[in-house]
Structures are given as C-alpha cells and as structure tokens.
C-alpha cells in the first residue's frame, strides 16, 4: 500500500519543480486562492482567540473586574494549582483518560477481532455497534444520567434484581460513585471508535499471512502475537495518541451527566476550564487551566512517541 501510494502520487515535477522559488505565477495565485479561505478563517477565529486566551493566562482578567486588566505573571497558575479542588481535578482527569482508554482499547480490539471474518448480518451488526460513535456526548450523558438515576434508574434495578446490591445507590450524587459512572458512559461511547480503526487495519492484513502461518503450524495465539499485533501496531499507536488528546479535551458527557458535581467531585481539566469561563467568568484562570492542558498533552505526546519508537509511521 505504502509503495503504491508513492508511485500513484508524483508531484508532477515538470509543472512544479521542488523548491521552486515562490513567484506569483498562475499556479502560485491558484494555490493562494485555494488556501486563503482556510488559512484566513482559521487564523482569525482559531489562532487569534487561542493566542489571546493564552495571554490572558498571565493577566488579571475577570468579567467582574474589567477595568483592572493587567499582567500578574504566574498568579493565575498559582491560584489554580493551589485551589483545594485542583488535586481532585487532576486525579479525575487521569482516571477519566486512562481508565476510559484502557477499556475502550481492549473492548474495541476484541470487537474488531471478532468482526474480522465475515459472518451473516455483519453489515447490520456493524451499523448497530458503531452507532454510539455518531451520537452527541451531551445526549449520551443524558441517557446515562437517567439510567444511573438513584431512585428510578434501570441500573439500580438490574443490580438489585441480580442481588449485587441490597439497596439502591445514588450513583451521581455520591462522590465515590459519580466518577465511575461518567467513566462507564465514556467507555460505552468510545469503544466504537477503536473498533472502527482497528477493524480497518485488520482488514488490510493479507490473508496469505495467516494461511502461511497455519501451514507452518502456528496456533491462533501465535498468529495473534506474531502477525496481527505487529501489523496493526502503527494504527494502535496513532489511535491511542489521538484518543488521549481527544478524551482529555472532551467535556460533553460529564457536562450533561453531573456538570462536575457532586461538589466538584467529577470535574476534569476541560470541564473545570469551562466552569471557570461560564460560571466564575474568571478568564485568566480559565486560560491558565487551558495552558496546563496543552503542556500535559505536549509532554505526553513527546514521551509517547519516544517510548514507542514509531515516529516514522506516525503520520496521519
């Protein structure tokens, strides 16, 4: 596949020699015109606000005190980090990302493996199990909020019926249960994405590899470890990387399930940030939280790419 792509994609050296000096040729104007809308819009409405927001992180900038905007160095960061909630927020973020990720990956992998070979009705099956991926996090949060309801929730009913608990649990009202509940909803939502990516990778493995292995007497377990896993490792790597970024920046489920409650027990960094913008309207501190997220993600990415040595394959 990789080879083919390069052959199929010559950049037509006769028209545009590599490192051609930029001149306003017909081609140059065409390039500029085609890219201009994307670049201008993204610069004005994505980059500008993000840069402006990052500057706010070092300013005293709250809606209640707009007359008094000035630079305060790292005070916003100090205030955020030393606030009593912050340790919980960080701990929750770690749980939220890694527990969700672990189960999404394992279940998604198992699902993709089970769906690799064709079976009757696979198309419909795939449509059903992949559907959560297209749903909004907000609605998923609502649905699970209703299911986790302490009094009339179906989950309590099922647990009572199977005898796993003796009395209904107020899942979303008790701090120790609330975080587990939102993570369960997030796992339900995210398995499909992993399954989709992994299934696509699995289907690109040539069948001959398995046939040859079979002839050589390799059992299924050997095949899994010596053919399947090495083959899809680059995909796993990219998917995990994308997912970590995405899960950490994904506030919707928590927003609609608990809105960070009870008493801040389910806030993660991104919901904490939104809370600071919408309710406290302390833009400076909100931006500080945002920059903390960026630093965490960047260091994770550097660490992850170094550790897994797949940098070369990691383009997407």
């Amino acid at each position, binding site marked *: 596949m990789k080879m083919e792509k390069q052959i199929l994609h010559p950049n037509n050296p006769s028209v545009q020699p590599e490192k051609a000096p930029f001149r306003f040729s017909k081609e140059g104007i065409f390039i500029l015109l085609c890219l201009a809308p994307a670049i201008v819009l993204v610069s004005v409405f994505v980059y500008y606000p993000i840069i402006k*927001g990052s500057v706010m992180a070092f300013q005293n900038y709250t809606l209640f005190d707009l007359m008094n905007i000035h630079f305060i160095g790292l005070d916003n960061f100090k205030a955020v980090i030393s606030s009593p909630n912050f340790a919980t927020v960080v701990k929750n973020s770690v749980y939220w990302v890694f527990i969700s990720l672990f189960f999404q990956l394992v279940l998604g992998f198992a699902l993709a493996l089970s769906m690799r070979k064709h079976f009757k009705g696979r198309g419909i099956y795939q449509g059903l199990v992949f*559907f959560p991926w297209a749903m909004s996090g907000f609605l998923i949060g609502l649905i699970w909020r209703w299911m986790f309801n302490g009094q*009339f929730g179906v989950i309590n009913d099922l647990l009572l019926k199977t005898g796993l608990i003796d009395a209904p649990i107020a899942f979303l009202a008790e701090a120790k249960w609330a975080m587990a509940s939102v993570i369960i909803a997030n796992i339900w939502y995210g398995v499909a994405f992993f399954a989709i990516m992994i299934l696509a990778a699995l289907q690109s493995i040539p069948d001959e590899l398995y046939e040859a292995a079979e002839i050589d007497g390799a059992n299924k377990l050997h095949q899994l470890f010596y053919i399947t896993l090495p083959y899809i490792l680059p995909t796993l790597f990219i998917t995990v990387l994308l997912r970590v970024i995405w899960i950490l920046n994904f506030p919707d489920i928590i927003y609609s399930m608990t809105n960070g409650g009870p008493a801040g027990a389910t806030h993660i960094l991104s919901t904490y940030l939104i809370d600071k913008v919408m309710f406290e309207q302390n833009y400076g501190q909100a931006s500080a939280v945002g920059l903390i997220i960026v630093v965490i993600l960047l260091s994770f990415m550097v660490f992850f790419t170094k550790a897994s040595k797949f940098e070369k394959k990691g383009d997407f």
Partner: protein
Amino acid sequence: MTNAGIWLRTLKVVFLSIFLAITIFPLYWIIITSFKMQKDIFSLPIQYWPKEFTLDNYIQIFKISHFQTYIFNSFLVSIVASFIVLIISMLGGYVLARFKFKGKGQVMGGFLITQIVPIFIGMAPLYMMMSKMQLVNHLFSLMLIYTVMLIPFCTIIMVGFFQRIPASLEEAAMIDGCSRISALFKVIVPVMLPGIMATLIFAFVQCWNELIMAVMFIDEESVKTIPVAMNSFIKKYDIEWGAMSAGTVLSVIPTMILFAFCQKYLVNGLTQGAVKG
C-alpha cells in the same frame, strides 16, 4: 473443526452478543422511556416494557417549548456549516496534496496543532469578538465557529483523499482543454465522491452534536439549537424525564438515518486517512 476452534467460535459469538446487548440497551431504554406514561416513568417496579404506550411526552415537548424551531435551527446551522467546510477543505486539501510550495509544511503543521490545543482556551476572546460583531444570539455565530473548528481536520482528511487519486487523471483532462478548476470538479470530484460524502456527513454530525459553543453563544429562544434547548430543560424543569427522553429520541433520529445510509462511506472514508496497511 478442532476443539480449540469450536471454543474460540463460541467465545466470539458470546462476546458479540453481549456487546450488542450493552450497546443497544441505553438506546432501547431512552426510546421506551419516551413512550411511557408520566406516572409509569416515576414508579416502581420499573417497567421494562411499557404497560401503556403514549405519545404524551412528544406532544408535551412541543407544547412546553418551541421544539420545531430548535430542530429547524439545528438543521440550518449544520447544513450551512458542513457545506462551507466541505468546499473550503476541498480546495485547501487539493492544493496541499497536488503542489509543492513554500510554507506547505507550516500550513499542514498549523492545522495539526489545532487538534491538540483545546479550543476552549479561546472561548473568552471568541466571545468578546462575537459580541463586538453583534453575533451573540445569532445563528451566524455558530455557523462561523463550527466552520472554523472543522476546517483543519477536514482539510487534513481531504489531503489524504486527493493523494490517493492519481494526478494523471486531471492532467489528462487539462490536456483535453479543461481548466484546472473544472478538471477538479468534473473529473476528480466524481472519483472521490465516497470521501466527499464521508467528510460532509462527518462535518454535519459534528455540528449537529456540538454543545459547549452553542451554550456559550446562544440563549435566546428563537435561535436555540437542540442541544442548547435540552440543556436549558435541565435547569428549568429539574429534568422532566418524559419530555427529555422524547427530545433525545427526536434529536438522535437524523443522525441515525444518516448513519444507517452512509455508515460504509463514513467508516471507510475516515479510516483510510489514518490506517495504512
């Protein structure tokens, strides 16, 4: 079949069944809740199949709110934004895939970085910009924000689609006298229709589902989109689960229909970019 083979197969069937049940159950639950009588929703023992079916909750939601307006607004914003995203990302993706020029790497890198940095950092400045432009509580603000939020990702995806189509295709058309832009639309677009559909649907669904920005910029009744409206139900009525479940079902239906028809496009289209064998 060997013993191990049978064992493995059974395991697979069991796993697939359990997984299907767990995936479907929440959807099933919200749907049957929406058809239950108010008194049955809040009564024990819980009914796994409603004793009486009713459309009350659906009637209720149109009575207590302007749900038809929210649906219309959601469609308007999502359709406009996703088409604009498609056109812009197609033009950008085409150029990035086909030409070599100074600054190309920086443009791609610039798009990629936006995928890491949470857009929420820019929320406050964005709000101030919108209020200066008098766009708060105006659907145009959402169209604009959704468009810019989606351009980077969709452009990157489009680059992948274009790279998979041989450049000789449009060159042949250009030799036959087509201009580059008409070659693009007459020759290339038909070939990559699946990818284009995937991008369009992806963009539509993202806009349809978006909550946080919508809540930030909209709070007037006439311009609410569905998520904003549902979010305000939470605060207003301390969650009236009958109407809420009806609203949930109604707002999932369009996604469901799109997904049912275009699942293949969507799944293939979006994985092609990331997965290489």
